[in-house]
């Protein structure tokens, strides 16, 4: 049985293709203005990687911000349930998930089957999200994928007092002008993000094991700061960005079986 999960987020789209219990292929693409097109692009790429055709997919579930506008999906499920499901597949012992996505951030609690038992989401605010990191990377002129590594070179954190993405950006600019090393500014930015997501985690309560999913999971600077605050070492998958799509694909498998 071949099924697919498609996660259309605000900044990226992912597709995971499963054959029974095994991940056949996955893809990550940048989200365009058209969510339906993003879903198709991601799915086409995953199909190519798996060397199969669209007709081979028996059931598809869409998730994420654009989940309702994926024309070829059989059903849609919120990304909150999907992240818990995906994380549970990768790490059956997980009870707390922090998903740091492009434009929002979620703290999720789940039980041993991967079913959500509680969750909290940030509101209308880019702090602690992928977009926030992008803005900072841009201000400092460092490629996004390098900001985590760069921040680790800092001897101390520059003080970023505002967790607001807009204000933090101007703070970063003025720090840069006054000669503060980029590594220290980034370290300060990561500290601000970590404080923000830690507050979110406290709302649902933290219990081990702890997993971080979503694109920010690739930023080792943030991971380090969150680890320090939470006091638990997060389990990380090789590709944290596809956890939501993976969860959607797992739901697709279940729903297809139930008929």
């Amino acid at each position, binding site marked *: 049985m071949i099924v697919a999960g498609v996660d259309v987020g605000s900044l990226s789209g992912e597709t995971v293709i499963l054959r029974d219990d095994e991940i056949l292929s996955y893809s990550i693409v940048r989200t365009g203005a058209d969510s339906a097109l993003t879903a198709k692009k991601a799915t086409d790429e995953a199909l190519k990687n798996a060397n199969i055709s669209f007709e081979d997919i028996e059931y598809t579930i869409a998730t994420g911000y654009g989940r309702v506008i994926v024309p070829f999906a059989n059903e849609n*499920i*919120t990304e*909150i*349930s999907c992240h818990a499901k995906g994380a549970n597949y990768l790490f059956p012992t997980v009870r707390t998930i922090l998903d740091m996505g492009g434009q929002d951030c979620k703290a999720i609690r789940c039980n041993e089957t991967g*079913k959500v*038992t509680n969750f909290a989401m940030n509101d*209308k605010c880019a702090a602690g999200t992928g977009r926030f990191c992008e803005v900072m990377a841009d201000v400092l002129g460092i490629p996004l994928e390098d900001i985590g590594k760069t921040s680790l070179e800092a001897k101390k954190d520059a003080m970023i007092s505002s967790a607001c993405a807009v204000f933090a950006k101007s703070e970063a600019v003025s720090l840069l002008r006054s000669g503060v090393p980029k590594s220290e500014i980034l370290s300060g930015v990561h500290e601000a993000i970590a404080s923000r997501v830690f507050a979110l985690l406290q709302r649902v309560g933290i219990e081990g094991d702890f997993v971080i999913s979503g694109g920010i999971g690739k930023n080792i600077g943030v991971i380090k700061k969150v680890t320090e605050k939470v006091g638990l070492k997060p389990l990380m998958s090789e590709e944290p960005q596809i956890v939501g799509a993976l969860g959607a694909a797992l739901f697709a498998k279940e729903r297809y079986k139930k008929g």
Partner: protein
Amino acid sequence: MTSLEELSEISKTIANPAVDKWKAQGKPIVGFFCSYIPEEILHAAGIFPYRIKAKGCTNTPAADAFLAPVNCSFVRSCLELALEGSYGFLDGVVSMNSCEHIRRLYDIWKRKVKTPYSHFLCVPHKTDEEAVNWYRDELAIFKAGLEKAFGVSITEESIRNSIAVHNETRDLLRKVYELRQRETPLLTGKEAHEIVVAAMATPKEDYNRLLKGLLEEVGKREGISAHGPRLMVMGSVIDDPDYIGIIEDMGCLVVTDALCFGSRYFWEPVKTNGDLMECLARSYLKRPVCPRMSEDIGQIVTYTKEMVEKFNIDGVIMERIRCCDLWGGTTLILQKRLDERNIPLLVVDREYMTSGAGQMSTRVGAFLEMIGRG
């Protein structure tokens, strides 16, 4: 037009045909800000009491100039509409110390909107007999002021009649809610909310007539059978039925609430045993509470629990408008108490306007997935 359609129309706008009709007869309308203000006294003075709401407000550039960033988006939106002139039909406003946001709204309203008559009621934060006496005196001052301002005399007889009219409204609305108690409810939550919102925007005699028609019409309906989980909504003020619609669009049915534009408005009748002004004071103070009452958090929990049992609720949505300190504080206690009873609770922060519908859908969707199958 059916009664339900007529009530639904009334709930959609600020001025409505009932307002126009009343004004055409040269009779006064007074706006009020909170469900703790006894409409009966206004009604007994021949005034149409109209509850101030903010339906239809999409942006608040004018109000932003007067309010601090910490004031909630509900009062901000009300003020915006008033500054735009949407409340030009009012001959007066009555406000009270519901919360600091409403107080600030009143200050600015008085100076910038310039509605001819205005009065501020000091409502106690307690519900004991001493508070009842205090509130009775406050109501007497309010009554005397109204008589002077509008050149009328409010007799005991007219108060008695007004209480009877309003108690009939309460009784009819309870019957409407009973239709939602069934296994296959006869009304959606959005429809029921439209009905209650219209209660505060229609002269009561007309409204009671509409409600009787509605009960007859809706009684013939088939119940809603495939409706998903049964939810209860509570928290900060909701005067916009579309908000309930957004929740129900995710595949559930809102069957009851603890809202002030909802069950808390009409749940208990005014008992008329003794001095009528004292009866009003007592009934209004002791009605199912808003967290503005400082001593009765336990009652909110009890009321919620009773609703959950009576309406066979699968989950509770507790929404708080950002900066609503009253519901913000209550949430923590409520969360703990509902947890102990294994009643699933979704807490959502929101702004007054429905522009955050996408985020709301995701939260409600995830909540339904959490309490549902899988």
